């Protein structure tokens, strides 16, 4: 994968094309910086909704100099339909990934090096990337340089909504055992996790896919 292959959504966040399929996948789960651009629209999701989301996972601004958990840069606790609503606002072709796409993304991003994230941030700086996309990538390259899986939030991140034909959406990811109550998850081997309780769960987030035009 090379940074030049990335496509940007309307918020200026990057997606990488997946090998062999006409799908690009977001480098990162949905960030609060992206959702705030949606929120700023006259017909956005509304301040009350966002305020409720922040009760599940507080906000850390990417510009802020204070330290805080990286997870607070991202929007979590959102429901699959809310992720779809955000995808709809991004434009035609944006959606939740299906199970196979998410796994392909997991493999592709895991094979990159943390250095690649820095190269990508540099590329975005000169090619219309949103300052938040660049800032978040640079920050994660500092704080999560142990592996690409960690840097791109595939490890120690969230459960990310995926669709599965005939089934309710489930979550793929490898959140820390501390957050899953000791459960070790392997999204390459097992089915997506389904929230039994329903409702909002701060462990759930989303990483969007984009259907590349044929």
């Amino acid at each position: 994968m090379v940074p030049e292959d990335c496509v940007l959504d309307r918020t200026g966040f990057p997606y990488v094309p997946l090998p062999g399929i006409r799908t690009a996948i977001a480098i990162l789960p949905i960030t609060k910086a992206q959702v705030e651009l949606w929120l700023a629209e006259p017909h956005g999701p509304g301040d009350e909704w966002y305020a409720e989301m922040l009760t599940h996972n507080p906000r850390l601004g990417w510009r802020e100099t204070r330290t805080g958990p990286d997870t607070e840069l991202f929007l979590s606790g959102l429901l699959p339909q809310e992720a779809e609503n955000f995808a709809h606002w991004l434009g035609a072709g944006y959606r939740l990934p299906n199970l196979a796409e998410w796994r392909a993304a997991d493999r592709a991003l895991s094979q990159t090096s943390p250095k690649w994230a820095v190269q990508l941030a540099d590329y975005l700086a000169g090619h219309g990337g949103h300052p938040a996309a660049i800032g978040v990538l640079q920050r994660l390259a500092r704080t999560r340089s142990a592996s690409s899986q960690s840097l791109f939030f595939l490890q120690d991140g969230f459960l990310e909504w995926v669709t599965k034909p005939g089934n309710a959406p489930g979550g793929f990811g490898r959140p820390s055992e501390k957050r899953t109550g000791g459960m070790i998850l392997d999204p390459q081997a097992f089915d997506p996790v389904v929230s039994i309780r329903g409702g909002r769960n701060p462990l759930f987030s989303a990483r969007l896919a984009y259907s590349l035009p044929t």
Partner: protein
Amino acid sequence: MSVFWFRLHPAPPQRNVVLLDVSRAAEGFRPVLLSLVEGLAEELPEPVQPEIAFLGGTARYPLQTFLQRSEELFSHNAGRGRVLAPTLEALPSPWPVRVVLFAAHPVFDLGDWLQNPWQNHFAVVALDPTIPIAGADQDKSLNDLDMPALARLVNPQPRETRLLVAGGLPVSWPTSGWRCEPGRAVYPGPLAAPVRLGWCVPSEREPLKSVVETIWENGLRTRQKPTRTDAPALGEWQPLTGPELTRLDAWRMRRAVPCPNCQHDHPPGQVFCANGESGLLPSLAGCVSGGFVRVRIKTFQASMFPVREQVVVHSETTATGRNADGQPIQWEYDSTRQCWVAGRVLSLFDRIHAEEYLLTLPPVPPSAGGPS
């Protein structure tokens, strides 16, 4: 050593920005916001009327356009969420001196913008004094601001203008209000008209590093490159008369000279009689009070050069200015510390080269017509 000349211009009128909260929670404040903008239109002249933007939106409108289309613009933007980033990221760089946010409820990403380098640009006015926006200690409340105060908040003035030249010594500046010292010349307020300042800089400190800083009432510091300008026309050496040569010769020997005007002895450097006349050296009539005069004394002739600058440069590393008490002092450039340091206090008639002396005129000559 070179002398560089700069021209400083008054700060151009600032086109600042006012942000209006049009979120659902602020709907009831629409008439208040409109009357605030109308008030600013009355209070501020057109060149400094702010642009109006909606919190969350990227467009900015000239104030008069906003007033003409307010209904349409309010309804088009109503419901925007309370986030600053889209609006502030769309501002031109460098940022306007002042961005004032009128908000009814807390803004989600306000914390991002209340830190450097944005914090001094930013002011928050709480529309409802019972609902803090940036925090009770940081919010301005509408209750505490009358229209002139609000206009001042939107359009702060320069509090200080500074010209900083690394390794430089100011040699010439406008006489009123400026405070000058090695490395900096400071004017306490906005400049009303262009001014010219001269600086001497040792060759080892070239190329020149210089900047104009404007310190605004809101604490903001803006910087720009100063404009270089030509040196003013040089004066000329003027001949002194034979009797003047004789008197200067005596001063050179550290002897007092009897004055043909007041009949008193004038010690070296005392140009004026008590009545303000200069009977001893009549050629100096018309020289600027508080200035310096270079004097060359040769065997059969003497000449003078009235210095227009406040500091006289003698060599690559020495110059003469005045200390806070008005006494002439020698400035010396210290290459090790790379700065100018004040040296010895000079006498009023002091030798600076083999044949050249520096005469220091009193800041205010004795009043004409006084007792002699």
